[in-house]
């Protein structure tokens, strides 16, 4: 190997060493500048404590004034045991129930508050039961489950200020079919300065379960059971725990005013 070749080889080798040194130094600089730990996800256990709305209206304006205090939840009387509650309609201070005798379930009678049937006087209508009075005793007559479901399916009209009664079975069946939910309602996120403020309803398909809930197109749902909806995870948490929830209170923004919508799940 002549001198020229040696010089050439040394030159090449030097350049390679310089490249490697530069690359290594660059690598070390990157190593110094970059984080040496990644980001991990730590799931926070989310709890949905039972929600109990406090309604001032129920205290100062009771739906029905009941005299006496003894309410017997058992069917103590043979007469009451022979009756079935087939349906009910309930408003603030009025309403009616549909009664029948077990022996003749198709021969129904409609009874208003204060009216009597077979010696039993209707004194109060509850979401899924009726309280009847005979003498000094009171009896609770529960709505037949099948009839309750049928009633729910008929979807009673939403009355402002009153909790809307919903069937848990129906909700659970509905919640399983997310595609159907997407067809029945459209919701978009509402952000303010990059932060999620709620979910706006852009469409509700008529004659679907959502159309009976008192919600309107343009409503922005901002709170559920007093918890602000700050992320998709908040909304998803409620959806995933719907089977544990007994009462739902939605706070919606309608015409820039907060509006409360209440639901009871039975």
């Amino acid at each position, binding site marked *: 190997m002549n001198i020229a070749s040696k010089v050439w080889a040394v030159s090449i080798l030097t*350049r*390679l060493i310089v*490249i*490697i040194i*530069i*690359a*290594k130094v*660059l*690598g070390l600089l*990157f*190593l110094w500048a*970059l*984080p*040496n*730990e*990644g*980001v*991990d*996800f730590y*799931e926070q256990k989310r709890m949905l404590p039972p929600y109990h709305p406090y309604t001032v209206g129920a205290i100062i304006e009771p739906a029905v004034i009941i005299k006496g205090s003894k309410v017997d939840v058992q069917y103590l009387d043979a007469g009451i045991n022979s009756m079935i509650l087939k349906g009910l309609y309930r408003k603030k201070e009025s309403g009616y129930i549909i009664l029948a005798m077990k022996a003749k379930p198709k021969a129904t009678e409609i009874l208003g508050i204060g009216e009597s049937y077979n010696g039993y006087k209707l004194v109060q209508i509850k979401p899924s039961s009726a309280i009847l009075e005979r003498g000094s005793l009171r009896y609770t007559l529960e709505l037949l489950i099948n009839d309750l479901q049928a009633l729910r399916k008929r979807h009673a009209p939403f009355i402002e200020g009153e909790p809307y009664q919903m069937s848990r079975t129906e909700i659970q069946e509905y919640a399983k079919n*997310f*595609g*159907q939910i*997407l*067809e029945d309602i459209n919701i978009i996120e509402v952000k303010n300065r990059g932060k999620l403020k709620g979910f706006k309803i852009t469409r509700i398909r008529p004659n679907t379960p959502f159309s009976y809930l008192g919600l309107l197109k343009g409503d922005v749902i901002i709170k559920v059971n007093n918890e602000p909806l700050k*992320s*998709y*995870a908040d909304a*998803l948490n409620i959806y995933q725990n719907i089977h544990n929830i007994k009462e739902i209170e939605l706070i919606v923004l309608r015409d820039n005013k907060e509006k409360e919508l209440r639901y009871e799940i039975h």
Partner: protein
Amino acid sequence: MIGYGVLTLVTVLYFLPKANLYYKLEHELQPQGIIIHNEHIDDKRLWLEILDAELYVQKIESMHIHRANIMLFGLYNTIDLEQITLASTPGQFVPKNIQSAQFRYGLYDPLNINATVLGDFGKAEIRLNLYDRIMTANVEASKLMKSKFSATLKNLTRDKKGVYHYEYSF
């Protein structure tokens, strides 16, 4: 000179702390609500391999990625994802199995990141415009997607060729 350039690039790539670059990416994604969790990182010297990554979006478990290969050549960069399984929540919108997703970014198209996604839902060509901050997706929906996930497709616009289009600003 080109030889030295290529050699320098390869050497730099070899010594580059790719795992730390990946951590930096994770820190950048976190404010967007995207967290990659429980993954195994393997520095293959010229590229980075990520195995069994769980992806959370807005604290919601979204998908499991069996393998991801990240190649950063500066002028041309790719991220190849294989065997993606969507979690139950997004799985209610689209079929859960996605065979592959290839993301490409190069200096030949510096304003856009392009991606091709293949799965049981069909095929999607995605473009993320970094300047306008708009994501557009053209979806050729499969029979399964059309039959069982038609509710999702209703949120997309359909052209005369039967291709579905979706646009999202980020």
